C-alpha cells in the first residue's frame, strides 16, 4: 500500500456537497500552476481507471483544483483519501513532474495597432511608454495559461509585465469584439467571442480561441505557454481576421 504523506502545501477543502477543492498556496506563480497541472494530469489519468465512476469533472485554476464527484457512487472521505494517495508525491521531483514541465508553446499572431487596439493610446498616456514600446513589451515574453473560464475558451494568461499591467476600465464595454487581445492587471487574454468586458484592448488575434467543430476545440490548455507574434494588417486579414466596424474607441475624458 502506498504511504499516505500529504505534503504540507496540499490542502483539501470542502467546496460543496459533491465537490472538494485542493488549495496549493495562496499566491499564483508558474511553479504553483505547474503543480496544479501535474495534479490535474494525475487525476485525469486515474479517471480512466481507479476514479472512473467517482470523479465527474475538474476545474484547474491559478492555485487550486476543484474536484467534482459522483455522490451516488462515493463520498467525500473516499475521494479525499484517493486524492491524497494519488497526489502524495506531488512535492517530489518525480519523473511525472519533470515530463509535464516541458509545456507546449503556442504562438498566437496579433495585429497590434491604434485601429485594432483602441486602448493603446490611453495606456501610452498613462504609462509614458510609446505605443511601439507597449507592443514590444507585450509580445516579448512567454505567458502561462493559468486558467480557462468566464466564457468558453477564455484563457487567463500571465504574468503581464508590470509596466503595462493596467487595471480594468472603470466602465466595461458592452461589446468587446471576438479576437480582442486585452490586459487587466497582470493578466492578458484573447476574447474567444463577442462579449461584454472591461479589459484594455491592445490588438486583435485572428485565431479562433474556441471552435466547437475544430480539433482541438481550443488552441491552448491550462499549463501551456503562449507567445504573441506581431503581424501586419494584411497578414491579419489573410489569416481570416475581421476588423469590427465599431471597436468602441476609448473616449477618455482627458483626451
Amino acid at each position, binding site marked *: 500500500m502506498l504511504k499516505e504523506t500529504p505534503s504540507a502545501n496540499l490542502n483539501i*477543502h*470542502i*467546496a*460543496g*456537497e*459533491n*465537490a472538494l*477543492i485542493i488549495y496549493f498556496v*495562496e*499566491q*499564483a506563480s508558474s511553479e504553483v500552476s505547474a503543480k496544479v497541472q501535474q495534479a490535474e494530469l494525475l487525476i485525469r489519468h486515474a479517471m480512466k481507471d481507479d476514479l472512473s465512476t467517482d470523479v*465527474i*469533472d*475538474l*476545474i*484547474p*485554476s*491559478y*492555485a*487550486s*483544483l*476543484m474536484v*467534482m464527484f459522483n*455522490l*451516488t457512487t462515493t*463520498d*467525500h472521505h473516499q475521494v479525499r483519501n484517493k486524492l491524497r494517495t494519488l497526489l502524495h508525491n506531488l512535492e517530489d521531483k518525480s519523473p511525472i513532474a519533470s515530463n509535464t514541465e516541458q509545456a507546449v508553446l503556442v504562438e498566437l499572431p496579433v495585429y497590434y495597432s491604434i485601429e485594432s487596439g483602441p486602448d493603446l493610446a490611453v495606456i501610452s498616456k498613462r504609462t509614458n511608454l510609446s505605443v511601439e514600446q507597449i507592443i514590444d513589451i507585450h509580445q516579448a515574453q512567454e505567458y502561462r495559461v493559468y*486558467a*480557462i*473560464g*468566464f*466564457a*468558453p*475558451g*477564455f484563457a*487567463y494568461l500571465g504574468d503581464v509585465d508590470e509596466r503595462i499591467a493596467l487595471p480594468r476600465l472603470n466602465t466595461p464595454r458592452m461589446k468587446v469584439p471576438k479576437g480582442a487581445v486585452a490586459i487587466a492587471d497582470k493578466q492578458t487574454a484573447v476574447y474567444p*467571442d463577442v462579449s461584454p468586458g472591461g479589459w484594455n484592448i491592445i490588438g486583435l488575434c485572428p485565431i479562433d480561441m*474556441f471552435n*466547437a467543430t475544430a480539433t482541438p*476545440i*481550443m488552441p491552448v*490548455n*491550462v499549463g501551456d505557454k503562449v507567445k504573441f507574434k506581431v503581424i501586419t494588417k494584411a497578414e491579419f486579414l489573410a489569416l481570416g481576421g475581421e476588423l469590427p466596424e465599431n471597436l468602441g474607441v476609448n473616449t477618455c475624458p482627458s483626451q
Partner: protein
Amino acid sequence: MPLSIGFLVKQPGMLSLIQDAGRFGAFNIGLTNGGPIDLGAFRWANRLCANELNATAIEISVGGLALTAQLDSTIAVTGANMPLSINGQVKELWRSYQVKAGDLIELGFATQGVRSYLAVAHGFMLPESFGSNATVCREGVGGLTGEKLKVGDILPCANQSRTQNLTLLDRLRPKFSDEAVLHTVPSYQQQHFSSHQQRLFFSSEYTVSKSFDRMGYRLEGQKISCDIDGILSEGICHGAVQIPADGQPIVLMNDRQTIGGYPKIGAVSSVDTDKLGQLSQGCKVRFEPISMEQAHNLFHLNLSRFNRTALTLCD
C-alpha cells in the same frame, strides 16, 4: 438539419429551453453544467413517460409554451403550477397523456413556482454538443442552436406513445411555496467570515431580488462582510454562495461561470437548490448550516425517497 418530425413550437413562451441532466466533463474548456434548475421535477417528468431519468426534455420558465404534436407520443408536465391544456381541454400536471399527431399542447403562466418540465416518450432526439443537449444560452451551446426555443422550431422525437398512462398521486407531489430553507455546507472561504458574520448569515432572512436566473439567485437582506475582498479565481461548484463587495449573497446555479474570484461562504445542497429555483422575486429564504455528512444524508434520503415512490397507473 436532418429531416425529422416531432413537436412544432407554436409559441415559445418566456424562456423555454431544451435540457438534459447537464453537461459534465467540459469545465476545462470553460463550459458550465447547464441542465434542469429543478432536477427533481425534471426526473419526475421523465419517469412519468417511462424514460431514462436524464432523457432530453423542455424546461419552461414562467410559462406560455405552445406545441403542436406532429406524431403520436406520450407527454408529461411536472414542476411549477402552469395550467396545461391539450386541444383546449384542461389537463393535470404530474401525469402522462397520450397525444396524437395534430394535438395542440398549451401551457399558461405559473401560479406557483417558476419552472416546469415537459417530457415526451423516449425523450427529444437531438445531436449532443460536448456530450449533452443542455442549452446554455450565454455559451451558445446545446439544444437546437444554443438558443432558447423560438416559433417554428421542430423538436424531433420517436413516433411512439406509451401504452399506459402514469400519475404521481397528489399527496406525493412536491409542494411549492413562497419560502425555502436552504441547507448549506460551510465551505471555501468560510474562515474569512468572522463567527459573528457567520451567525448573522445563518440567522437572517433573505428576499429573492429581481435578479434571479439560471446563472444565479441574487438575494437581498442582512449584509455579510468578509475580511478579504477577493481571492485568486477558482472553481465554483453548483449551489456556491458568493458574497461580493456589497455583502448581498448570490447563490450560483446551473449556468454559473465556472471560475470566479469572489469569496464564498458555503454551498447549498442540491435538494434545496431545486426549491430555490422555483422561487421568484419577493420570496423568502434562510440558510441553515449542515455538515458534509448531513449534506450527504440529505442527498441520499431524497434519492431513496424518489426511487421508492411508485407511480400509479391511470386512464
